[in-house]
């Protein structure tokens, strides 16, 4: 999604195209590494989610700014039976 503001059309040289290809390849590798690292964080994150739910019950959910609303236990979501991802 571009910023849709301001650009000037120009031809890309072979040198620039090659540079872009190399950067895209490196970005693909970087992305794969992030996905793996975030997958490895799953058990810790599950614990963070539980602690989050406890805070919602005890102190409340930030609905707007500092306005907090306590969420009863039976209002909390149930973990769906599917793979959970945080990086898309």
């Amino acid at each position: 999604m571009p910023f849709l503001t301001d650009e000037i059309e120009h031809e890309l040289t072979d040198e620039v195209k090659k540079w872009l290809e190399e950067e895209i390849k490196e970005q693909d590798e970087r992305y794969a590494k992030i996905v793996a690292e975030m997958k490895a964080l799953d058990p810790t994150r599950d614990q963070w989610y539980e602690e989050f739910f406890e805070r919602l019950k005890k102190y409340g959910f930030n609905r707007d700014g500092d306005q907090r609303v306590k969420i009863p236990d039976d209002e909390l979501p149930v973990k769906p039976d599917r793979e959970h991802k945080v990086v898309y």
Partner: protein
Amino acid sequence: MTRPHIEPFCDRDVHFKNMTLPGFGSGFQYKMLSLDTDIGSCTMSVQLSGGYSRPPGFSYSELEMIVVEGSITVGDKECVRGHYFFVPAGYAMPAISTEQGALLLLMYNTGEPSLVESDEHHPLSRTELYHDVDTYADIVWAPGNLVSPSVASGCMIKLLNFNPQTFAMTFLYCMTPHFHQDNISYHDCAEEGYHLWGTSWMMQFGNLPTGGYFWRPPYINHGAFASENGCIAIGRTDSKLFNHFHYNPWSTPDENEERSAARLARRDPILYKWCVNKAHNHPHGPEDFEDTMQRRGGHKHDH
């Protein structure tokens, strides 16, 4: 494909590379943070070596830049840590140099990095959009409740750039020590952030330290949020920022997007109905009569 979801990433974990694209000269090293695979727009942290200099010139892409560490001399003006530049495409910047070296964040918004040596602006440049400011010295922190629903107290901003067409924003944000906010957020826009200093924590991704970075596509869950010792960062959105808050950590981007549409249908039902009924007739978006109406001068405004 545009830019992939890069989150979290810390530029301190990788080495600088020499820039090989023409025009940038020696002493310009960079780390790529994210890159649009269609148009080559990108965000890079850049290390200029002590003694680096480049001649006056312009980029074919719109460019934003902030001095992270050190100082640079732009023309005859010294710009120190925190100095921000919004440079329209084709705008010829004066010569840039640094005596002791500098760390910069460069954001090429509409195309790949380019530098054409010139002391004249490109004829198509919208030069009136150029601005620069010392963000640390010349702007005060404002509460983060610029949008509603808003972030909690303790998250503050300094607005650096605002696009009235797209509502895209560039801003500094900070979290005070012991800031915390217990909700999950997503937006209808892409969002980007780079930690200039300090660490924040996010429930999905863990700690983001100094040099930490994210490019987050629309509808990605993020939060709860916290920062033990505080942090300062630069953030950007590519269109209007609206905070959709909730507390379901397992919702997917598709579900979040559908929820956004459901909320739009409740909030603006007539507009929503029009969009749904007529969208298929407007593959490039609906017509804005202010862009296309005949004007007395015989021209049209094509943004």
